[in-house]
């Protein structure tokens, strides 16, 4: 661990990526994530072999990522909600061609141009595919700048491990806020396989097969086999890569489920509820896909009810309901459009549940 520094989330993510060996960044300006490309444009040209390129569009940027990943590089792009929508085409191709890359989404309020303030209304888009076809992305949701650093570095390893894009999902608050950061000494996972599949130049007898980076499988039976292969990988991810944090859930009557920015506000609410004598607990999904069903199912055995809190009209709450499986009531509280819920609002929600004995 290095020295503690006060860093802006966006800049910390960019530096963490560089520390993790990312040497290529392709992006397009959009608020509230501009400090990521700005930081990359300053740092990457000073590093041997590094390249920052401002693309002509989000669409071009994600396809540059496709080309760089196909050539075997650690590569990243970042954007915010409307830009991520534009990238969905490329993301689908990247999944289909089994290329590793890291995509950062600093989510803002939508739909449409929406606002530039923090939101979590891209949960469906992130966890259900987003682009066309049968696929999943690993989705990591940091709730502090320090965690954003750690998850960005993890994202590169996971992308290489599974040959699948990994999405780091923050919001305007995670991106714009400054918090103390200790930049970890990054050590690449030595068990990661070599990228012998990359297109780097080939001829007969050079020791590997000709590389074809491709997502086209015109024969339906071959495509079905390919998609089944992808889903075998997803099954492994579901069993090996679920991450979450639990606080005071053991004896909790009311379990709050929240992620990212919302989770840190929910944590403050939970502590104050405990002071009032209401047994509240918190489950914070760190991976949004795969979704941590297990701790929620466990809590459903003894809790009276769940409250899902999101900066949206209720998207993750669907996953919470699937995990609770009808055993207990699942309530929802959300603010949207770029409004961040307050501690007081969450406390009131839980107090009302307790009063009504729900």
């Amino acid at each position, binding site marked *: 661990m290095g020295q503690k520094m006060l860093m802006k989330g966006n800049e910390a993510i960019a530096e963490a990526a560089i520390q993790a060996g990312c040497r290529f960044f392709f992006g397009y300006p959009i608020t*509230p994530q501009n400090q990521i490309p700005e930081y990359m444009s300053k740092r990457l040209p000073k590093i041997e072999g590094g390249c920052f390129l401002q693309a002509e569009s989000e669409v071009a940027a994600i396809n540059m990522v496709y080309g760089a990943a196909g050539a075997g590089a650690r590569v990243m792009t970042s954007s915010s909600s409307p830009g991520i929508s534009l990238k969905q085409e490329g993301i689908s191709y990247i999944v289909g061609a089994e290329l590793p890359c890291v995509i950062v989404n600093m989510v803002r309020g939508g739909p449409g141009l929406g606002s530039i303030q923090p939101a979590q209304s891209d949960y469906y888009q992130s966890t259900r595919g987003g682009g066309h076809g049968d696929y999943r992305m690993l989705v990591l949701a940091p709730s502090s700048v320090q965690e954003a650093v750690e998850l960005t570095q993890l994202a590169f390893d996971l992308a290489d491990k599974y040959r699948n894009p990994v999405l780091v999902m923050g919001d305007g608050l995670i991106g*714009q*806020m*400054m*918090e*103390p950061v200790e930049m970890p000494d990054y050590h690449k996972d030595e068990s990661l396989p070599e990228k012998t599949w990359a297109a780097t130049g080939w001829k007969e007898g050079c020791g590997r097969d000709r590389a074809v980076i491709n997502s086209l499988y015109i024969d339906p039976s071959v495509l079905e086999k390919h998609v089944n292969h992808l889903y075998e990988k997803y099954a492994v991810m579901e069993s090996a890569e679920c991450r979450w944090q639990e606080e005071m859930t053991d004896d909790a009557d009311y379990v709050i489920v929240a992620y990212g920015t919302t989770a840190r506000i929910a*944590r403050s609410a939970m502590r104050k509820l405990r002071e009032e004598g209401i047994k509240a607990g918190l489950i914070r999904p760190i991976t949004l896909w795969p979704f941590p069903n297990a701790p929620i199912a466990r809590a459903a055995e003894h809790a009276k009810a769940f409250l899902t809190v999101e900066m949206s009209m209720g998207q993750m709450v669907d996953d919470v309901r699937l995990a609770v499986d009808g055993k207990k009531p699942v309530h929802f509280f959300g603010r949207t459009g770029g409004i*961040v819920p307050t501690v007081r609002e969450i406390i009131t929600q839980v107090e009302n549940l307790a009063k009504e004995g729900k």
Partner: protein
Amino acid sequence: MEAQFLIAGFGGQGVLLIGQLLAKAAMHEGMNVSWMPSYGPEMRGGEANCAVVISDEPIGSPLVTEIPIAVIMNKPSMIKFTPAMEKGGIMLYNSSLIDITPDRDDITAIPVDCNGIAEALGNSRTANMVMLGAILAKTGVVSIDSAMEALKATFGPKKEHLLPINRQAMEKGAECVK
């Protein structure tokens, strides 16, 4: 212990720097801190503000919506943030540029003659440090020494010669609220 600040003014008055120095100093004193700026088009209009939270516990929301301590450097910011003050809150305001007082009788308003003191010291650019000194004296959240360490790190070697005048500004600011 948790202290929450909302610091607001014109862009160029150094309000973001006041916030960063508070956060950095508290970080060096071992506290949890967060600094959250306003961002986007509202900044283009010349207004700037940031929220700083300092706590010995993990910080929940880095936003400050019911303001316990407001630091107000210009008149539009006073008008904008007075309604958001917490009952019993403290508002330190730059009386050099603000010719009104907040229209609330349930908060404590403390005038600080930031620009006047800075000009008397011979460097009008230290008005924000006068205010920082006043904040430190009023809240005791971090020491002047820690704030100076943070400023030194921010300035770097090129601006090191400006440290003494900034320290004087902080000390004068502290005196005027004692």
